[in-house]
């Protein structure tokens, strides 16, 4: 694989030559991890291609482009808040923007309860060293064989840092809008951290958007700790253009009696890879992971989940559903691991796919790895078409075939969207899905940009 070798060598050059810039604004903790991480990336063979965990993901064309990398925070010449208005009606959120992986310095950090820290990751790595050191790069180990996560650790410079101390409930959801904007093809490495103490509660809504029609590749990683008896909700709406690629790795570590709800909605993007890891490290955790993808053209959506039941009496649910049109490709690989001591585990997983055309394709690998006996685990996967029985039922009520088909797809997707707990957000996503299915949406409809591509 000559191409692959060249890509990997380019990374090596970039890493070597960018050392000074990479380290400049970051704390020791971040810089300490770089060398080992990059070494591992190379030792693993660089960009994963046709490896077991990237078996069906066509990573080569994604990486095989002449991307620029910005190793220094650049002040944007325009007011991004003006340029981009992502608005969910009836949903009050506190808004934070990132641009090309960098925390926008002009962000007005909302007033927060005492002790809450919201800032850029680079700042946190210097200013809140103690907390930072305790958590940074501590939860990525389940992905030690994933070169792309190592690559993020090697190159990450900035992102969003959120710390919620014990007994603090954040009433309003925090909305993080990740923007990509450039005048050349661009690669970015955003790194985020969300730490919840005990008895805390927070909700984060992440939206990904592109503001220019360049090719983007975001290789992002987020580490999340949900402390004892805390609850964290994570919503992610991925809506970029067809030339955008993203690798989104999320690592959650759950403590006793905590609850984590995640809902990842992939509306649009050229190549989307979600790596969703959850470690249920103490008793009584509940982890709910939902995902939905609507893909057409030549889009690729690749969801990879890994739920690690380490402690007894934890529950996990996973449900991923997708609709594939045109020549879209969707891959799902979900793994439930139940460790020997994790008795009384309940773990469920399902992946359902609708294939609409003869050029769309689905590969699904739901996996159970179970080493404890007193457990209830199941998984299921289906690939099929719209139920003709139901279609006929709708048509006998006077609903035309096209409309009936849309309704069926909407209903199919709504099973996932319905899991969103924030009512206004749920309505908004339903609306986006409806528009998306009707082909009226190639981007978030409030976005002022109209891509050429």
């Amino acid at each position, binding site marked *: 694989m000559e191409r692959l070798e060249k890509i990997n060598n380019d990374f090596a050059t970039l890493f070597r030559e960018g050392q000074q810039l990479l380290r400049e604004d970051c704390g020791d903790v971040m810089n300490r991890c770089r060398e080992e991480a990059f070494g591992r990336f190379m030792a693993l063979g660089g960009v994963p291609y046709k490896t077991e965990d990237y078996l069906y993901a066509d990573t080569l064309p994604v990486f095989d482009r002449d991307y620029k990398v910005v190793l220094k925070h650049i002040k944007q010449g325009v007011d991004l808040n003006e340029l981009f208005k992502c608005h969910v009606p009836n949903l009050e959120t506190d808004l934070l923007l990132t641009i090309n992986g960098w925390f926008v310095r002009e962000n007005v950090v909302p007033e927060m309860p005492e002790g809450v820290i919201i800032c850029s990751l680079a700042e946190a790595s210097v200013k809140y060293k103690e907390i930072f050191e305790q958590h940074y790069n501590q939860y990525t180990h389940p992905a030690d064989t994933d070169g792309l996560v190592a690559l993020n650790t090697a190159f990450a410079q900035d992102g969003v840092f959120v710390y919620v101390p014990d007994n603090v409930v954040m009433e309003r959801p925090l909305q993080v809008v990740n923007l990509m904007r450039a005048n050349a093809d661009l690669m970015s490495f955003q790194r985020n951290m969300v730490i919840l103490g005990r008895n805390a509660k927070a909700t984060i809504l992440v939206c990904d958007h592109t503001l220019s029609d360049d090719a983007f590749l975001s290789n992002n990683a987020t580490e999340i700790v949900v402390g004892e008896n805390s609850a964290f909700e994570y919503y992610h709406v991925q809506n970029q253009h067809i030339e955008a690629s993203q690798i989104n790795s999320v690592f959650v570590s759950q403590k006793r009696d905590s609850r984590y709800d995640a809902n990842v909605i992939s509306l649009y993007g050229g190549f989307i890879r979600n790596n969703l890891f959850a470690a249920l490290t103490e008793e009584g955790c509940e982890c709910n992971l939902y995902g939905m993808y609507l893909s057409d053209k030549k889009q690729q959506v690749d969801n990879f989940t890994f739920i690690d039941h380490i402690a007894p009496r934890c529950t996990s649910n996973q449900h991923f559903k997708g609709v594939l049109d045109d020549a879209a490709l969707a891959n799902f690989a979900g793994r439930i691991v139940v460790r020997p001591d994790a008795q009384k585990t309940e773990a469920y997983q399902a992946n359902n796919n609708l294939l609409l055309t003869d050029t769309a394709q689905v590969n699904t690998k739901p996996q159970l790895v179970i080493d404890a006996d007193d457990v209830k685990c199941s998984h299921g996967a289906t690939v099929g078409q719209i139920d003709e029985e139901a279609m*006929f039922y*709708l048509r006998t009520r*006077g609903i035309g075939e096209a409309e009936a088909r849309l*309704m*069926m797809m909407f209903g*199919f997707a709504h*099973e996932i969207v319905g899991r969103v707990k924030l009512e206004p957000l749920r309505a908004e996503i339903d609306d986006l899905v409806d528009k998306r299915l009707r082909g009226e949406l190639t981007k978030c409809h409030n976005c002022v940009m109209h891509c050429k591509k």
Partner: protein
Amino acid sequence: MKGLLKIKNLHASIDGKEILKGIDLEVNAGEIHAIMGPNGAGKSTLSAVLTGRECFEVTEGEVWFEGKNLLELPAEDRAREGIFLSFQYPVEIPGVSTVNFLKTAVNEQRKYRGLPPYPASEFLKMIREKMELVSIDSRLLNRSLNEGFSGGEKKKNEIFQMAVLEPKLAILDETDSGLDIDALRIVASGVNKLKRPDNSTIVITHYQRLLDYIVPDVVHVLYDGRIVKTAGKELVAELEKHGYDWIKEEVNSAK
């Protein structure tokens, strides 16, 4: 108005097997027809063919509805022309709420008739009125269509939809199956309340019990893909008493 539905020598088959072997039937506006018959006679096939189910192939015959050639129309247009089928087994559609489903159905039908969409505020009011008609729990409105409904709830939901869509011809396919006596009464009274001089009903059933509540004007016996007997409502009692065997014998000896 005479001759709402006219079926002439209708033959239909599935996977090459002929199920309907020449049905002749005429239903006038305002009439209630009962179609009875033993299992496997072709009762449900008839309802499926009339409403446009594609897995059945019509090999011969004609069906006219208000002067229109029904067999040329797709299922949705037949519905829009005013034919409603109450399914024997209503289909569950996860993720699609009942209210959203009905709104779409009503507006699509209105569009077909050249009417503007139902005003949103009045729509809900209308829905609520119709719900009372069949004593249906309003909470069902926001649940996914038929999903997790009990057998009785599903059948009530069918009649509720019929009330909302106001068809000219309602076909009730084994609507009594799986209903307890209370649900049966509610469903039947719903049908009776919807009765108007200009609409018609075909009740397809195996048993007498639904016909105690919905009294037919004409009773047909369907056997082996043909209507072998047509009479008044007194035939119902006779069938209940003697079963279908004597009819089968009559038919077979005639062959």
